[in-house]
Structures are given as structure tokens and as C-alpha cells.
């Protein structure tokens, strides 16, 4: 701070950039998970963060297990929960308006947080440590820059997941049907595309991505609480809309961009001024939305206004 109380930008160095890329990659994964389900169901799943939270608790409660088994359990729990959400709530409400579905996901989000609290509080303390994954938090020093293993994992997971997804959507028949369902669900069904098949695929993939994010976030924040990933989900939802929710790649870029921007702004602000982070980031968001309401990366007009 200077005499006027205005925060002074700290030097942006390679360390800040590396951390910002890691955060951007993590948010990009979340954006893909949210965007996949939105593409098919036109459903903004506010409860996506609670899938991640459930994964994080699974990692915490299986801390004594071997790392691989603990991560496998995390994937199993999150995918199962994701499917349960689809079958018990989204499927019966599929014909309802997007508003009804969005509000329902709010309710699911709070129910899951409350359930998590009930489970967590049994030891009279809120929060559980996830100690087994901390081995991924060890930094590797490259050319004076500390790159934590988890940053490498986050970037590799994001690149790998996006690559695999591009292959699945672009090169397989189920991928073709999924793309068609995302573009025009009614016509796709009319051609014989099984609605439940493509929706289940999207929900499972979205769950798997949430599980991967749970691992990454738990490494960075090994203390798991019921509001775990809630804040991140809100930021990613904003990023997805800023990028353009109508298409998977614009949503993904939006997720990456808001993560990367948060990381950079966080690094640029002196340590005692990081309270300014949300106001800076969300002011940028408002500016972008005023200039490009359809999405930063969307060419021409988008139909998103009709859909949400």
C-alpha cells in the first residue's frame, strides 16, 4: 500500500504465471463438466460444486488407504452421485423450464452441503483433513520457479481430459450423437438418438471431471469442509457465461480465463491486499458482459438468452 491506501502491484513473475495457469486449468476442467451437461440438458447445474465436495470428503475419509485406491473411491462416489442426481431429479424434471431446473439445483446444492455437515460433525469438529493426497503438493524447482506437482497434474489432467473429450465427441458415433443432441435435442431424438444414452454419457463424463477436480483442489486445500468448492463453482459458472455457455469450447476457455485472471490478479496484488481480488475480478466480469453479453468468445449473436 502507498500513502493513499491504493494497492501497489507486485511484480508479476514466472511463479505467479505458473500458479495462474494451474488455477486456469482446474477451472477449465470444471467448465467442461458444467458445459457438457448444459449442452445436452440446457441445465445450469449449480450443485456441481457439491459433487466436487463429495469427492473431497471421500478422499478425506479414505486418507488411510493407498493413494490410488483413495482416488478411485473418489471417482466412484462422484460419478455415482452425479448419476443419482440425473435419475432422481433431472430426469423427472426434464420437460420443465430452465428456471425450475436451476432453482432445483440450488436446492440440491444446499441439501448436499447439509448432509455433508451432518456426516462431518459426528466427530464434533467441522472439517476433515485429506492427508493422503498431500504428497502431490511437493514442489519441483525448475529454473528457480517452484512448480508444485499438483500444478503439473492439473495442467496435464486438463489437457488430457480435453484431448480425450475432443476425440470422443469428434471421432465416435456416440460423440456425434452427443453433439447433435447438444445442438438440437428434439431433432436428434426424432432421428432415433436415444435421449437417456447421451444424457447418461454427459452426466458420467461430467462426474469424472468433478472427481478429477476434487483431487486437484484437495491437494491445494487439504482441509475439507461442507462449503468446499462452492466459491470455485460460482466463479467458474461466471467464467462459463463470460466465455459463452452455448458452446463447450467457449465455456471451457471462459473457465480457464477466469481462473488464470484470478491467479494473475492474486499474484499482482500484494499479500496484504488480496481482499481486493473478488472486486477486481468481478468488475472485469461486469465489463466483459456489458461489452459481449453473448460471451467473450462467441461470434455473432447467441441464442443463450432464450435458453436460460
Amino acid at each position, binding site marked *: 500500500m502507498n500513502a493513499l491506501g491504493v494497492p501497489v502491484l507486485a511484480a508479476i513473475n514466472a511463479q505467479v504465471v505458473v500458479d495462474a495457469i494451474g488455477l486456469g486449468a482446474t477451472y477449465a476442467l470444471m467448465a467442461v463438466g458444467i458445459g457438457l451437461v448444459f449442452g445436452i440438458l440446457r441445465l445450469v447445474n449449480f450443485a456441481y460444486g457439491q459433487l466436487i465436495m463429495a469427492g473431497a470428503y471421500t478422499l478425506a475419509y479414505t486418507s488411510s488407504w493407498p493413494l490410488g485406491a483413495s482416488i478411485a473411491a473418489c471417482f466412484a462416489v462422484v460419478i455415482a452421485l452425479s448419476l443419482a442426481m440425473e435419475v432422481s431429479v433431472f430426469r423427472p424434471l426434464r420437460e420443465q423450464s430452465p428456471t425450475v431446473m436451476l432453482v432445483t439445483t440450488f436446492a440440491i446444492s444446499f441439501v448436499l452441503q447439509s448432509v455433508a455437515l451432518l456426516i462431518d460433525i459426528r466427530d464434533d469438529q467441522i472439517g476433515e483433513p485429506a492427508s493422503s493426497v498431500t504428497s502431490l503438493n511437493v514442489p519441483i524447482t525448475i529454473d528457480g520457479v517452484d512448480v508444485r506437482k499438483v500444478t503439473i497434474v492439473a495442467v496435464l489432467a486438463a489437457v488430457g481430459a480435453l484431448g480425450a473429450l475432443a476425440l470422443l465427441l469428434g471421432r465416435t*458415433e456416440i460423440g*456425434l*450423437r452427443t453433439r*447433435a443432441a447438444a445442438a438440437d435435442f*428434439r431433432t436428434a*431424438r*426424432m*432421428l*432415433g*438418438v436415444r435421449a437417456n444414452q447421451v444424457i447418461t454419457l454427459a452426466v458420467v463424463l461430467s462426474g469424472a471431471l468433478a472427481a478429477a477436480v476434487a483431487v486437484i483442489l484437495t491437494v491445494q486445500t487439504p482441509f475439507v469442509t461442507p462449503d468446499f468448492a462452492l466459491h470455485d463453482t460460482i466463479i467458474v459458472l461466471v467464467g462459463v457465461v463470460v466465455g459463452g455457455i452455448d458452446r463447450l469450447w467457449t465455456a471451457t476457455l471462459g473457465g480457464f480465463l477466469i481462473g488464470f485472471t484470478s491467479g494473475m490478479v492474486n499474484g499482482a496484488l500484494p499479500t496484504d491486499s488480496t481482499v481486493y481480488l473478488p472486486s477486481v475480478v468481478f468488475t472485469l466480469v461486469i465489463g466483459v458482459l456489458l461489452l459481449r453479453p453473448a460471451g467473450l468468445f462467441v461470434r455473432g449473436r447467441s441464442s443463450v438468452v432464450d435458453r436460460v
Partner: protein
Amino acid sequence: MLEIAGLTVSYGGAPAVRDVSITVGKGEIVGLIGPNGAGKSTTLHAVMGLVAAAGGEIRLAGESLPRRTPEAVTRSGISLVPEGRRIFADLTVEENLRLGLSGRRSREGGAQDIESVYALFPVVGEFRRRRAGVLSGGQQQQLAIARALVAGPDVLLLDEPSLGLAPKIVDVVFETLAEIRTRGITVLLVEQRAQRTVAFADRTYLMANGEIRLTMTPADASDTDTMVAAYLS
């Protein structure tokens, strides 16, 4: 082949289709004409399971179609060429056709059927690697018909295939329908071009206010306009 018996569809309490019965025999082409809002498209949508019917029955080859979801109806042998074509603009022409294969009852023979629609619609074959969105309206209509045909349907429903097309292209569409007739596919054709439809179809129904008002044969073609006007007034 296709029997629509006592079909009733309501939108928010208001009946859009009232007690409509249409029978299309195997290999027949049956026309359905009428003013906008008469309930023609709604009838097709109810057959496909795109809208819920309040009453009535749909039978295919004598068998009642039970729980109707669009994908189940298509897989049972009825394909719809929807109004406005509804092609996937961002996908290639070939990908659009591959999607049409989703509605087949058997996986075998799909590749041959795609080749055969390329023969029927040379322009579709020519642009097979292009984005479908760059095709002209007439080409897109041919693609939409081709996409329905590769599902290998027994019954083809067409919803205003000539809408918005230049007269020359309309000729192409009707020539295509004539070719489809020679393949023994049963056709229910919803059209705005009344006289042309009456002349072309084996039998044409006039629909107004959700009800069938009149049945016409090709012999009535020259009097179509006066007959339609008389029944609608």
C-alpha cells in the same frame, strides 16, 4: 400400413387436433392440406411422439405403437422430415446422414443406404464433406429427406417439404417423392401447395380447425381451389 385413429391433441386445454383418423395403405402417398394452424404439423408430431396425444391410437402395420418417445417411433419404422428441415448446420453432410442411421432397426446395410441416397441426391453426395449449413435451402431439403431415408423407414412423414423453395426446386422435391413412391415407401405428406398435392397423392385430406373436412382424389385436382374455398368458408 399407418393408421391414425381418433387422434386428439390439446395445447393448454385448447384442442389443436380433434378426433382425426387417417389411414395410409402400404406404398400409398396420402396428402394432408389445410390453412396454417389447422393441426397438420401437430398430427405429424403426435405420431412421432414429439407432442403428447390426449386420445386416440397410432397403429403401424396393424400393431399399436405403445409408449411413444420420438426415438422409439423412429426405430419402429416411421421417419419424419420436419418442417424447416432441421438439419445440423455445424455438422458435415455425411455426419447428418450418419445421425439418420441412429433410427435404423438393424445396424446392417447402413453404409449401402447412405451410398444409395448419394445416388438419389447427387448434390448431397457432392457436398458430403462440407458443413451442412453452407448448403442452399433446396439442397438442405434434399439432405433432410436423405437423412430420413437412411433410417430405412416403412413410413415417411414429410412436413411442408416445399416451404420456402423456388418453383424449380419444388419440382425436384416432388420428383424425389415420385422416386420414393417407386421404392414402396408409404408417405404422409403435409403441404401448403394444395393443388399440386391433390394431383400427386393417391388421396388428400383437407384439414381445418383440427378436423378432417374433406377427402380429395387426383380427379379433383383442377377444382382444388374452389373445393377448398367452399369448405373453409
